[in-house]
């Protein structure tokens, strides 16, 4: 398998995520797009991890394992983020009856 294909896929996912974050105003969609970007990174990390394992297994039985470790960290952090973020969105909905992020600019005042 060529590593490039994973990279292209990850870039594609990441860009979709960015565009989603930039273009949409619905907080839940933005949230999902952020998750999408995180997962694009996860995908890349796993792919590179496999690549390094294949290249370095002769010398080191655990080569590339740290990439997969990072993935777990990211998943944990993402989960924590979801719980906090969703809570914020719920509170926001309660206050404004909307999940449009542009309403948040009233925080400025």
């Amino acid at each position, binding site marked *: 398998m060529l590593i490039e294909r994973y990279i292209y896929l990850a870039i594609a996912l990441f860009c979709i995520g960015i565009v989603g974050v930039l273009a949409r105003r619905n907080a839940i969609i933005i949230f999902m797009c952020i998750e999408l970007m995180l997962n694009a990174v996860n995908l890349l990390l796993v792919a590179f991890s496999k690549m390094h394992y294949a290249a370095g297994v002769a010398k080191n039985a655990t080569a590339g394992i740290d990439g997969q470790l990072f993935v777990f960290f990211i998943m944990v952090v993402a989960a924590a983020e979801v719980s906090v973020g969703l809570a914020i969105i719920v509170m926001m909905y309660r206050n404004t009856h909307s999940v449009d992020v542009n309403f*948040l600019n009233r*925080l400025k005042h």
Partner: protein
Amino acid sequence: MNNVLHLVWLVPFFPLVGFLITGLLRKQLSKPLISIIGSGMVLASFIVSVLLFTEVKNGNTYVANLFDFISFGTLSIPFAFQIDQLSSLFLLIITGIGFLIHLYSSAYMHEERNEHFGRFFSYLNLFVFSMLLLVLGANYVIMFIGWEGVGLCSYLLIGYWFKNVEYGNAAKKAFIMNRIGDLGFLIAIFWLIAKLGTVTYSTPEGTGVFDLFQKLTRTDLIGITLLLFVGATGKSAQIPLYTWLPDAMAGPTPVSALIHAATMVTAGIYMIARSNVLYTMAPYTQSVVAAVGLATALFAATIAIKQNDIKKVLAYSTVSQLGYMFLGLGVGAYTGAVFHVMTHAFFKALLFLGAGSVIHAMHHEQDIRKMGGLSKKLPITHATFLIGCIAIAGIPPFSGFFSKDEILAFAYAKDPLYYYLGVAGAAMTAFYMFRLYATTFRGTFRGTEEQKHHLHESPAAMTIPLVVLAILAAVGGFIGIPESIMPDAHKLEHFLEPIFAKSNEIQMAALPEHHTEINLMVISVALALGMIIFAWFRYSKKPELNEPAGFGKVLADKWYIDELYNFVVVKPLNGLARFMNSFFEKKVVDGMVNGVGRLVNYTSRQVRLLQSGLVGNYVLLMVLSMLALFIVKFFIKK
């Protein structure tokens, strides 16, 4: 033997005590007591001065080091008094005439309220103190202290009637004009310190200015002497700084007599006579001094011809006579200049006090057009005033003749042109003095009935000084009889010889041949006599009562010099100050400071716009920045 000379500090001490007592207790003491203390202190100084003078006459001199005034590193300026021929002579003039004028003032000022009377005497005493410091100082800094001190007292006394704004302005003008000269004096002192490291006149060890003067270069000498002369023009009212003196007549008349005729204004002559060595070494400066002196003598005399205020005539006459003294200094006739200081002190103090007596009798009327025919009502004043006029006109054997002709003789030897111009000035002097005399004392009375009714001779306290001064003005010249008339009779020259010894070594100012000198005297006396007779007859019969027209108006308006100064200096300075204060300070200097503040405010307002509060914007900004970082990192090669 020197015991008496140790008492030199007493001379200025008495007037200082007088100043403190009359000043601090002016409300508690009665008027007679104030005048006794004020005059008594000066009399005490006079007595000490006479003692000192007799000692100096025996050839003893002394420098009294009281304490260190300023000493730093190698520079040491002691508070020291020097008593020698020159200073002892000036002591006599100052304290002697000072006492007479104090006595006169006690009657002249008797209408003043008690505390103002005390204030007047304390100022007068302070003046005498400062003037004594000036002539007693053993170095230029002490002289400068007295120099500024007399300027201050002159300011206080001119503005003595402080309710009058005009008088206040005159006082201010006097002080500021003097300050301009003082700056020159001060720079000259610094120049001496920078080059010689000392300001002491001379020391037995030979470390004084007059011992080391050969270390000075030509430029130094010219610079220092010119700067000292700038100081002298301020104090002694020479062109271009003379305009304050006529205005200074705003002060009470005894003040004009003491400060603005007899003593303070001659400080410049004292200073140059004291520094005679430096001036002899700088012939260039000498010619400047002579030229300025002569120009002032003539210029002031032309103005005096058309003045109608009795004190103004005398003021311009003083300026003119001071010009003669500077002419004398400029041609190297140091003794002559000092001699003229002395005789001038006699007759000009006399004239001013006489004028004061007239003004007193006329109830503060100073315009001579409203006087006339006073000779019968004021016999003593009239007689003494006439003696003063003859003395100043230079008629032998009165004192003015000897001193003025000594100066003119030396001037002739230097350059005949000086002499001719000088004689022209002397003729003008005779003319305006007798114009003044005739208009005031001859003819018929032109004042109001009420004034006529009140006309009276002044009290004894005023006439005694007049008589004493008249005697001095009449016979004072005999101590300086020229060689050409009587050999070895010039006592003053012998007395002052040690002071001018060094100058005479370098270059002895020459006198013309004896017969030439006598011819010169005859010319000047004849001219003066002619002028006297002309003026006497003309103005006794038909005094000049109308406003002058044509050229006479230019003279009466003092050649518009005040207006010129006003236009060239005062107005631009005020304009500049107004511009600086209302525009430059607020808009430019402070504007820059506030501009910095405003710039910070503006920038922050602009930067604040980035914080729109829209999440989308923040994210976009974040993404763009990350992209930019990415591009910089990977695509921009170093």
